[in-house]
């Protein structure tokens, strides 16, 4: 766990790295999530102060976007595409099999903290569905065998 001084130093560095950008909040939040794996609650007052926003405004932006997490994810993040082109290739059935195998639903993490399962709406792999992304790696023609890969 980070102590608060360390967190505050790193957030200050990220804020400084984005100084001078027009409309810098999203790049800052991406930077913070890349550094910490989520956007820590403790960073919000510091971001708000630097950008002359209210804490509520920063919180509002964080919660609007699906990408930003308020708590860390599991060690692996598995995203399965739920959009129509993948549905046409059996994505719903595959998602049901993956959920059953992992014993979790969308947006949940296995109790051992190994994997977080998330829906995604389109990875642009619509002619080789069902599509998935495992820890940032793109996968086409995915099947429930992906679970074995996560568990390996």
């Amino acid at each position, binding site marked *: 766990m980070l102590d608060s001084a360390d967190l505050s130093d790193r957030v200050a560095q990220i804020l400084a790295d984005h100084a001078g950008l027009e*409309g810098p909040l999203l790049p800052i939040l*991406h930077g913070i999530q890349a550094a910490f794996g989520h956007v820590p609650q403790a960073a919000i007052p510091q971001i708000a102060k630097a950008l002359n926003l209210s804490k509520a405004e920063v919180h509002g932006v964080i919660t609007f976007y699906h990408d930003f997490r308020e708590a860390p994810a599991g060690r692996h993040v598995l995203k399965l595409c739920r959009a*129509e*082109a993948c549905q*046409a290739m059996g994505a719903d059935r595959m998602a049901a099999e993956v959920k059953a195998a992992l014993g979790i639903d969308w947006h949940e993490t296995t109790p051992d903290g190994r994997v977080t399962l998330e829906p995604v709406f*389109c990875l*642009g792999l*619509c*002619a080789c569905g069902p599509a998935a992304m495992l820890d940032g790696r793109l996968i*086409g023609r995915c099947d429930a065998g992906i679970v074995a890969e996560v568990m390996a």
Partner: protein
Amino acid sequence: MKLYLPLDSVAVALGAEAIAAAILTEAARRGIRVDLVRNGSRGMVWLEPLVEVETDAGRIGVGPMTVADVPALFGSAARHPKALGLVEDLPWMKGQTRLTFARVGVIDPLSLADYRAHGGLQGLTRARSMTRAEIVAEVTDSGLRGRGGAGFPTGIKWKTVSDAPGDRKYIVCNADEGDSATFADRMLMEGDPFCLIEGMAIAGLACGAAKGFVYIRSEYPIAIRVMESAIRIARTAGVLDAGFDIEVRVGAGAYVCGEETSLLNSLEGRRGVVRAKPPLPALEGFMGKPTVVNNVISLASVPVILAKGAAFYKDFGHGRSRGTVPLQIAGNVRYGGLYETAFGLTLGQIVDDIAGGTASGRPVKAVQVGGPLGAYHPRADFDTPFGYEDFAGQGGLIGHAGLTVFDDSADMLAQARFAMEFCAIESCGKCTPCRIGAVRGVETIDRIAKGDAAAIPLLTDLCSTMKSGSLCALGGFTPYPVLSALTHFPEDFTPVREAAE
């Protein structure tokens, strides 16, 4: 020995990195020097990963590749068990008119020398010799309309921004390509990023803007990386300078940010909530300044229009849909991918002839055209020519020109329910018909599924409210997939089905 292997997301998702490693290992083992170019994709997804071997006769395609197929590449490419012949002679390639995608899959995406050698920067060079009004007139005369889906004439939008007073103006490229079945923006950015940069630079000249943004969705990591590299290269080479520079911004997983005013709020660092129009973004856009918001394909079509002239581009097409359109054929389809052609092919020609029907081999039941907000078309609509007005006339839209093919196992009630569910998940919350209507829509469709036929008029009434009362296309167009499913496939909405089970 010169080989090509795409860096395109599709090739990577189907194993291109392992093929690349195997090629280098095998070459080292044989003591052969290989020049492995990571190109864009030719758009033939069923052949990916597609390796091309340069020979005296031309580039011979070999695919779809597995690691086991690598050693045989080092013999005669033409005699490889998976050899396809010259790539440019394949029927999929020969049938196309590649104007916007002319270089995608052909060149090294990050070689400015390659880009120049294949006609790149001719449009920008010509634009630099023209007045602002002349550039705008050229784009207007080409008949180019917004390829993001709305179909608004690009030249008229540019003229509004060009004529607007303002100390700062912006060119914003909408690369938040969130519609299912669309990947043309991604392929263009991954396969020919300088083309987009050139189009934006021309837009900057035409409108008097000094700054451009490319807003790319976070689901496209490879496109983000390639665009950022290309922008750095363009700066070093002086293609971009203080007179016009571009910055990449990454989205954060909100579908609604593909709507232009929501995108502008997101760029400004706010919640991606839709803005009411007027004011038009062309007059009060990013930071309240005059702003062009154009789709990737609209901007990437500009260089060829400037290089070859408005008349050349306008000559292609059909009715008021001028030029070419990159069709993206997806879903349950035998030959899926990107196919650029003049407007005017019928839906049936696209689905049956080009795409070869379904991957499953079962009959086509429905084709959703234009992404998640597009209508589901039955075979009865297969004689509809691909054009903005033609699809509007069939109760649909062409959107970003994506087509999702479904076989006869599709349950259209489930598809209609998903459309409402998706709208509920992605609604920005600003207007009531969308925010609440979508939730009620899911509930109403669930009632129909349980056999409550009285809920059907309620659903059509709700759809009419959403259509006329929503602030943007998300709530306003969700009725297209819902009502088209209900109209064309009523058998999926009747309790008879449940009774039979």
